[in-house]
């Protein structure tokens, strides 16, 4: 592996571990500025360029954040570097914990690294769902109805799934084997536990990533046997079919 490749890999690893990638320089003592707790390694980072940061925080360019460095001895005040970090404090300002650093000459590669990394992470997340799946099908929802729980002990909680099932006409089976119709369970509840779980209605067309007798989600005593697609990645639009076929 060349030095360039090795460096690229190092930077990619840092980028993968960090929610914040910022180009900036250290310019202030944190004790005079930061509204959160500080240590001897906490300094103020003036952000000159946001390479990556959570969108909800808005444009951080030109702003100061506090960052706890891994080792404050190696920092050169006012010299610009790329900082990889994660946040632990959100107040009037943001407090970060350093993951690593890179030279600014690496910034040209940074956007390419981030794009590749995000695509890779997205593929890995979807691949994980596909690996767990017993079935992957395409089809269309014909009807939905509540699941009959007669005779089965069920717990009652504000977090109960309130199971419904969707009868799906199967168009193709991409993984596993199944007949031309399938019943897939889904939670009708909009409780915190289930608010992100896919909900289905008649006419829905797409790709279902299906587990049988899942043991992942919900209170164990609230789970019911059968097929289900409970993760937000477990229902995909038909646009993703090529990608899914490649990942399977």
């Amino acid at each position: 592996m060349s030095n360039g490749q090795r460096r690229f890999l190092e930077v990619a690893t840092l980028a993968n571990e960090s929610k914040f990638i910022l180009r900036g320089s250290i310019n202030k003592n944190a004790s005079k500025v930061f509204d959160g707790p500080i240590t001897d390694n906490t300094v103020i980072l003036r952000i000159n360029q946001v390479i990556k940061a959570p969108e909800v925080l808005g444009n951080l360019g030109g702003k100061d954040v506090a960052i706890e460095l891994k080792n404050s001895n190696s920092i050169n005040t006012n010299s610009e570097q790329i900082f990889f970090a994660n946040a632990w404090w959100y107040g009037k300002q943001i407090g970060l914990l350093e993951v690593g650093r890179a030279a600014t000459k690496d910034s040209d590669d940074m956007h390419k690294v981030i794009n590749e990394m995000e695509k890779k992470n997205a593929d890995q997340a979807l691949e994980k769902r596909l690996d767990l799946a017993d079935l992957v099908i395409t089809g269309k929802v014909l009807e939905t109805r509540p699941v009959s729980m007669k005779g089965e002990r069920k717990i009652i909680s504000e977090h109960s799934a309130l199971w419904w099932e969707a009868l799906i006409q199967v168009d193709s089976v991409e993984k596993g084997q199944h007949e031309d119709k399938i019943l897939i369970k889904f939670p009708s509840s909009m409780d915190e536990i289930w608010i992100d779980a896919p909900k289905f209605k008649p006419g829905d067309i797409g790709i279902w990533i299906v587990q049988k007798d899942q043991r992942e989600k919900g209170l164990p005593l609230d789970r019911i046997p059968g097929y289900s697609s409970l993760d937000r990645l477990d229902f995909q639009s038909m646009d993703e079919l090529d990608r899914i076929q490649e990942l399977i």
Partner: protein
Amino acid sequence: MAILVINMIPNSLSNETNRDSEPNLSVNPSNPLQLAASAFTPDPGASGSGPIFVSTDGGNTWSLNVVLPGGNRTVDVTLRFATSSNVLYSGIMRLDNTNMDILRKANFLAPGNMDILVDRANEDQPYVEAATTDGGAGVQNDRVYVGHNDFNAPASMTATAEASLNAATVPPPANFTPDRLEVRTTCGQDGPSIRPAIHANGTIYGAFFRWTSCGSAPFTADVVVVRDDNWGSGSTPFTALVDPSDGNSGKLVATGVSIPWMSQLGTQRIGSQLAVAVDPTDSQKVYLAWADGTSGSNYTIHLRRSIDKGVTWSGDLRTIVSATNPGLAVSIRGAVGFLYQKLTSPSSGDRWETHLERSYDGFVNPPTDLILANVPDNNGSYGGQNPIGDYACLISLGKDFYGTFAGNNTPNNANFPNNVLYQRNANFMTNTLLGTDGVTPVAASIDPFFFKVPDGNIITKIEIDIETGNIQGAGTNGRVYLGICGREFRLDKPGDQFRVGISDNFIIGLGSNIENPNGVNDIINSPNSYEIDTYLLNIFPKYIRFEPQDNDDNWNVSRVELRVTDDTNIVHKFDALISNGSIWLGENSGLLLGLS
């Protein structure tokens, strides 16, 4: 001190539009400037852990510290500081696997997740309370009780308190064991809300709904209170209170109540709302509030009290219709705080009124009612069934009340009758939230709000005019004191006072003109040193006390007017009832002159 209502969302999160509801709160008893709070707020950085809200200035400003394991946000979450150890405890339901975790953190401000003490599946709604006891020989023990609905419990008796008598430093599971509160048969389980209340003498109450019929809503339930007299440390904990109707432990405070499980009041789901609080000055006094009804429209909160350790109970002291999320707390002055969120339906659409009622006489007379918020039942982009949360929170520390509630965050002063402060960017002229750039409009959503309601307003200035009679011998060289708020101040300023026919003006506090306003170590003749307030002003007598130089020293007083200013600039006036133009004070005629 004025009432404080604060929108808890930090300025750096001005762009956010989450549903940040079901808030819970704790104030560190050993340092009341330190507060911790929780809500459904996610980690903006999507780290895989969730945040708590923290404050180090008494709740005036709030930040997020990401410390809760189990997903970017939690499901259920409550938290409590122990009395004197500074340790923060929490009970959560994790988002990733729905397990109940009981957590601990020695320094709630430090980065890093809380330590997991207990991790267990098939649990519901953990609700934590904590206290520190003197274990003898300088040992301090944190006693922690987490009410939860334990579906692992045998025989469908699910109401449980997970208890540890020494939780501060020992390794997991930190001595936690489940104490079963339910002893009667149920329809398959109890209701989700199990609430402990701790008194410093080791009396612990627990309250829960015993579900007797839960096939289809409305369910039927009994409202049960249990008690332990020694920290739950015995072999049969929480069995001290027996109901004579069946000889089982747990007083049946109300039986056969209807529970409209998962009905809606406005857009908010309802079905298990319960609160309990014990008087910190008298463990025999305990207050209970619960909600019942057959539907949202008749969902009613009942408030009751026992003064004999739960053996007998009053009827309803308060009854609030169309309300949810009751909170209860009792201050060290015996004031009872009663928090609730009431749905009102004006012609302009449903609104949530958040009320804090306070009573000093056990609700014999109508309580003082503060409306902390009056906001639309409008949830922004949130389309779920739990917009404002299954509970709000009310606690008391010292003489003051603190709490949290959730509601629509439109920045409109008309929505907050007792004022509000926003940390996030907001334009109160256009009633618009603004983003981190201070310009871009942000859609309204649900935010958590913190409040502090001090008991009584701090007195900042005491001013008194005393006129000596205009007759021979009226003056004195003796000492004169003002008695007020349970203490005395010496009325003495440079020069001569109490001369015949002269009116003297004395000012204590702001603009002081008396001798030794701050004195040695700032403890002489300053109301600020004792933080006296209008509550003390009302309960203690106000008087002038004359200390003559000798038996022949008499003093004639013709007029006294006292003016007391508090920190909301209200001036309270009192004067002496002097008939016949003046009154003599002296060894043979009396030394005190009352003011009213």
